[in-house]
């Protein structure tokens, strides 16, 4: 059910966009403007036509869009004439604008386009259908409102801004969740600088049952993609954030308090020397470690935990527009990586509809500055961290997933001792070399079995009558995964003396 306050995905053709359902709020997407009001209360998965900025539900086979929307590239060797749409189309752009102004429906425009295309009649029926489908995507005003599933979210990020989720492709993510044996009633550690996408995936698979320790980078947990899952508030209770920069203090309660204190002291300093900021300020939340430096206007303080993240996302959006392909320090510019920033999303989430313009209105955050509720949240947060530490200390966690933009080696080494024996872990990295390093570190340390470094290969197939073939484009890589199983270490020193060394060597090479 499409409900107020929930986040939903708006699909137009192949483009997805995450928005929050609110009444009387105008949505902009793919040159369409509309209000969601009419959709509230209808089932998720409903399809709508946009007319006069309002939504009207339609059957799913509406428009010419019902043929599966595979890659449009096609060899189409049967069409003898090479199509030259510039010359073959008699209607001008002005004609089309005029038609739209006079309120012509999408279907009417497409009809006119086909009639005025000199080649249309000569095309094969397959090509005619393709032409109509292509025009349909452009001129038909149909949208679908969908539940933001892991599948759709992952694909949306990959299409729009893959570097935000460390290029974690959906098949690789699926391997992580399965190999990591994520399920309800387990105790899982997640390190995620993928907008909280992996965190959300794990929480969904746990169904709010068990314990989820989120090791976060920066000043507070960052969960933009996580929020898209619309988890019930009760799920939050199973979540325990733990700061990455205190991983070395898991077993030193004294040190961890020092760490928190130090954090308190340092948080008063801003990098650009403007006014002193509160410790919960969002400035460093996602410090774009591998990206170009971007000047970000400082925010003073923030009100609710959820809003914190949204604001950060907004800043992310700003920086993202200047984002180069991450990690590139070589001379070659990586212009091929066409990142589309998700600024649009954050606009809507933060409720500033005109955010497209250069003068961006900001909510008056300052009024919350000395809010006593903030102090309460701060206390709760510290409590949660202490809980997380206590849980990690026990060393009987059930799973560990890492997907982040840092070298995963030190993280695996720090967190693997928190797992019980006979538990699985999976470490993702966009590149192969850091995982080779991880592999060698873990082999040297011992206590792990079935270490596997893998890459999955994914290709779509177009299945159409007489036109069955693989898609003409595919992803070059979905990243790499290192997985393994923990085992007990304790008997190693004693057993090695009781066993014949030859046998032992043989076994330990796997």
């Amino acid at each position, binding site marked *: 059910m499409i409900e107020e306050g929930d986040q939903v995905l708006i699909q137009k053709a192949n483009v997805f966009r995450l928005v929050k359902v609110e009444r009387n709020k105008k949505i902009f997407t793919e040159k369409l403007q509309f209000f969601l009001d009419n959709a509230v209360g209808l089932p*998720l998965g409903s399809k709508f036509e946009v007319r006069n900025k309002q939504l009207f539900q339609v059957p799913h086979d509406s428009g010419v869009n019902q043929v599966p929307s595979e890659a449009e590239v096609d060899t189409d060797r049967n069409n003898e004439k090479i199509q030259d749409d510039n010359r073959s189309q008699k209607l001008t752009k002005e004609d089309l604008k005029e038609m739209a102004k006079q309120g012509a429906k999408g279907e009417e425009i497409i009809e006119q386009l086909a009639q005025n295309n000199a080649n249309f009649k000569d095309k094969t029926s397959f090509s005619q259908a393709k032409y109509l489908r292509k025009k349909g995507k452009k001129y038909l005003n149909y949208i679908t409102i969908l539940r933001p599933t892991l599948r759709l979210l992952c694909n949306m990020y990959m299409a729009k801004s893959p570097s935000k989720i460390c290029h974690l492709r959906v098949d690789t993510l699926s391997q992580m969740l399965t190999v990591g044996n994520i399920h309800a009633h387990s105790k899982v550690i997640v390190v995620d600088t993928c907008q909280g996408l992996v965190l959300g995936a794990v929480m969904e698979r746990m169904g709010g049952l068990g314990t989820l320790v989120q090791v976060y980078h920066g000043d507070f947990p960052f969960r933009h993609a996580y929020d898209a899952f619309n988890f019930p508030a009760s799920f939050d209770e199973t979540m325990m954030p733990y700061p990455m920069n205190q991983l070395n203090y898991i077993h030193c309660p004294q040190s961890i308090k020092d760490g928190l204190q130090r954090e308190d002291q340092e948080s008063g300093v801003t990098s650009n020397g403007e006014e002193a900021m509160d410790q919960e300020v969002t400035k460093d939340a996602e410090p774009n470690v591998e990206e170009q430096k971007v000047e970000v206007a400082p925010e003073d303080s923030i009100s609710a935990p959820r809003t914190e993240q949204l604001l950060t996302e907004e800043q992310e959006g700003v920086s993202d527009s200047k984002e180069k392909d991450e990690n590139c320090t070589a001379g070659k510019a990586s212009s091929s990586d066409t990142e589309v920033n998700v600024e649009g999303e954050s606009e809507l989430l933060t409720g500033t509809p005109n955010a497209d313009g250069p003068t961006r209105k900001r909510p008056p955050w300052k009024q919350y500055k000395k809010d006593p509720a903030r102090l309460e949240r701060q206390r709760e947060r510290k409590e949660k961290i202490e809980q997380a530490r206590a849980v990690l200390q026990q060393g009987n966690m059930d799973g560990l997933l890492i997907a982040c933009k840092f070298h995963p080696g030190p993280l695996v080494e720090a967190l693997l001792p928190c797992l019980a024996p006979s538990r699985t872990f999976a470490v993702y990295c966009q590149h192969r070399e850091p995982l080779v390093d991880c592999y060698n570190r873990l082999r040297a340390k011992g206590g792990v079995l079935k270490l596997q470094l893998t890459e999955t290969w*994914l290709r779509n197939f177009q299945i159409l009558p007489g036109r069955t073939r693989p898609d003409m484009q595919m992803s070059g890589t979905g990243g790499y995964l290192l997985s393994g199983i923990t*085992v*007990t270490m304790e008997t190693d020193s004693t057993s090695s003396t009781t066993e014949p060394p030859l046998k032992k060597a043989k076994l330990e090479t*796997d």
Partner: protein
Amino acid sequence: MSFVRYKAIVEEGDVVIVYLTHESMFPLTLEAGRIFQTRFGALRHSDIIGKRFGSKILCGGGRGYVYALHPTPELWTLTLPHRTQIVYTTDISMLTLQLDLKPGSVVVESGTGSGSVSHAVIRTIAPTGHLYTFEFHQQRAEKAREEFSDHGLSNLVTVTHRNVCTDGFGLSDVADAVFLDLPSPWEAVASAKLALKKAGGRLCSFSPCVEQIQRTCDKLRSHGFCDITTIECLLRTFDVRTIALPEPDLGQPDSCVQTRHEGSETAQSFTFKSAVPPKDMPGHTGFLTFATLYPQVETS
């Protein structure tokens, strides 16, 4: 014990996965007093009972050792007794995610086969979901039912012996997802549509051959399924090694003399740690076809 809930200590009656080497593992149901013969020598069940999962267990009177691992659907997939061709973890991972499975999901599957997919699905939909799995062969259905019981999963799964292609699933408006692994999956599409919830759901069909997916996609289209996509997902496992590639001797004055002697490998090498692709790898398991059934529109 239950496959879907970790525990710490091995008890009698539990299933453990006995790990000998990377390539050699066996499932073992523990009975005090019994002995399991491994290539490293005799393994006494009693030596495992009472230990932590993941412990090193001596066998052959201390001549060798194995590890006793907690069973997971993935280890089970690697070690289960094959009654049919099975679907492996790479494809299972993909179908689990693409079918939007999570705790509470209701799933319909056919055929059960060796139970490889079933175990993984049950793990993901537990503790509140349910799997209805259908198997054409009576013996296979019974064997699967037994296994689910032994693995503590009985309350999460219903095994039915039936030819769903001719007799249908006999379910209506219950499922969030349907998984078909059948020689003629198109024959089950109409019945799968019935089984899916009216609020909509997802379907996946696994087939090795192009002709199978062609017929299935046609059928899905004609039955009003949308977003029909077919994918192939292959796993490449790397061998992590240190490689030393010798530098060629181009006649540098200082290295000229040595290179005549084969034994003395003092020549320099270009040494690097690498993830070496396998010589051979799986080239194809099957095509996974996914489709969405959207909620029915009650509009003009």
